[in-house]
């Protein structure tokens, strides 16, 4: 499973040594799916217009800086409704370019599936003092902390 290796290795890069955090809020039964293994779902993300900060649509249709507050959609209809809300936020000049991102449920947490979105939701892998990872707002990629150098090979 390339994607598993990817996320597992990424966790060693991005993992901020902090306690387990609550998972992003889902719209279905994460526990049962988690017991079965990986499950793909989607969230909606955008950049805030005024300052460009990466934001995630929350369960109330608002926009949160913290990845953990992202609402997770497991079916197409819910995602379509969320993207429609995103389009409204664009029209209201709140955010720019909302789009859906695949996330995976692993070890009790959701995390973006692709490296690009993992970095976007966390911050530069070469500057852990910057971005969401510096503010405790990044996704949790694994349960175990790492002591590797910040630019170790993936």
């Amino acid at each position, binding site marked *: 499973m*390339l*994607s598993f290796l*990817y996320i597992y290795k990424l966790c060693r890069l991005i993992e901020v040594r902090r306690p387990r955090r609550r998972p992003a809020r889902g719209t279905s039964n994460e526990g049962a799916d988690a017991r079965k293994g990986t499950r793909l779902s989607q969230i909606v993300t955008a*950049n805030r*217009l*005024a*300052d*460009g*900060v*990466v934001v995630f649509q929350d369960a109330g249709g608002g926009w949160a800086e913290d990845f953990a507050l992202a609402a997770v959609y497991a079916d197409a209809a819910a995602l379509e409704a969320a993207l429609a809300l995103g389009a409204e936020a*664009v*029209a*209201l*000049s709140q955010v*720019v*370019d909302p789009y859906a991102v695949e996330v995976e449920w692993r070890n009790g947490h959701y995390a973006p*599936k*692709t*490296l*690009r979105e993992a*970095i*976007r939701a966390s*911050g*530069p*892998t*070469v*500057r852990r003092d*910057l*971005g969401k990872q510096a503010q405790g707002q990044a996704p949790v990629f694994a349960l175990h902390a790492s002591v590797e150098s910040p*630019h*170790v*090979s*993936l």
Partner: protein
Amino acid sequence: MYRYDEFDAAFVSARVDEFRDQVARRLAGELTEDQFRPHRLMNGLYLQLHSYMLRIAAPYGTLNSRQMRKLAEIARKYDRGYGHFTTRQNLQFNWPALKDVPDILAELASVDMHAIQTSGNCIRNVTADHYSGVSADEIADPRPYAEILRQWSSQHPEFSFLPRKFKIAVNGALHDRAVILAHDIGLQLVRDRNGELGFTVYVGGGLGRTPLLGHKVREFLPERDLLAYADAILRVYNLEGRRDNKYKARIKILLHEKGLEGLREAIEAEFRAHDRTGLALPAEEIARINAYFAPPPLEAKKPTSDRVERRRGKDAKFSKFFESNVTPHKTPGYAIVTISLKPIGGVPGDASADQIDAVADLAEDYSHDELRVSHEQNLILPHVALDDLTAVYDRLASVGLATPNAGLISDIIACPGLDYCALATARSIPIAQRLSERFGDGARARAIGPLKIKISGCINACGHHHVGHIGILGLERAGEETYQVTLGGSGDENATIGEIVGPGLSSETIVEAVETVVETYMAQRQGPDEDFLAAFRRLGMAPFKEALYERSAGADI
């Protein structure tokens, strides 16, 4: 260096006011993103992975201390305390808020700076040799011509909506340090048999997804015809360049489709077709602009410094710095100092606000208030007296800027890559960091000798990988970062596009792969005087390919 006159100041100030109004209208919802995007891009403002990114022009890479201090101030006040110097001799801030950008531009305008035309389908910031005006092999200083082109092209009504971006580079020395053959127009200053100054004109160079070197369209263009001929090239491109496919919209594709003769004839016909006396450069205007770039009054001194030699005798680190980062100045008794922004394990091109301030102070104290940004993502102090080198070195060392690796294997160009860039397909900075840690700046790097590694995080090639002696291109394959290696590229007067060695390599194996390439070179070179590029040109690809893919078969490369 050039100083804004009243017209320049009013022009830039008006642009700031205009953008302030556009930002206010965007934030108020009066402009959509589609309507606003062209305006922000024409002011150097991108939306990247984490935030907005503001690209600030350092025209032909020349800055003074006041401007550097302003950049440091902006980094602290509006950004995250650092800036990133780029392969376009510009500086990028990675975290500005849109609402603050008009204030940032106003601050820049107060020191004769702006971000105009650092993005968009227009004539971009004109680049030049970072040793302009100081190298011993120079025919003429290219910066006055770059400045003339800058003034002519700024908000040029006919050339503000070209098919695609358009880059011009000017080189004034025998050795090409401006990579002119990788630009849409490359201008090489030359003298004809009568000693008259002019340009050899190259057109159609560019890297990106279709790397092509420029072709000569004019052996000798008289100095006075610079703008008239550039105008003719741009008009042909503007009319005939493709607008149906942005990947085929650069002038290099037009050249490829029309053929060199076809494009040359079209340019020459356009050049002759109109009365261009209005664009002829008056000698007095050239002299006026030249005066801004008059060299500082340097009194020739003894070509060696006892102080430097004594220090070299007892300080190996200083001696290493002297060997790699100090270049002879055209005036005896002076030197050009390269400040490497490639600390071992660091981020290529990044400098903290404190470091930017420190370099500003050094330029003011020791380099006649002048410094340069090189396309190799380093800073240059162009006029340092030899006797001052020890003091300059000590102050650089105190702020972590004395890495003695200029021109060596760890002096790596790397684009921001997937750590910052919305277009990137893989990370480039971590690869540069691991390579620089592997090879360092010590005896091994010195034994390897001159070797340019250039890394891009996508096919747009901001890291100039095609012209790296060893080029590395980061791609994404099936969700994994993959790195394609090219060898034998060069960006100088013998420019060459590197050849792809073979299938892409994983992130885990790329450093070992470069090690294998270097070991192959070291084993097969004819001696320390045969540098990597010379050895590659003699040996060809075969031994490197064999070492990488055949001898290593099964070793996960």
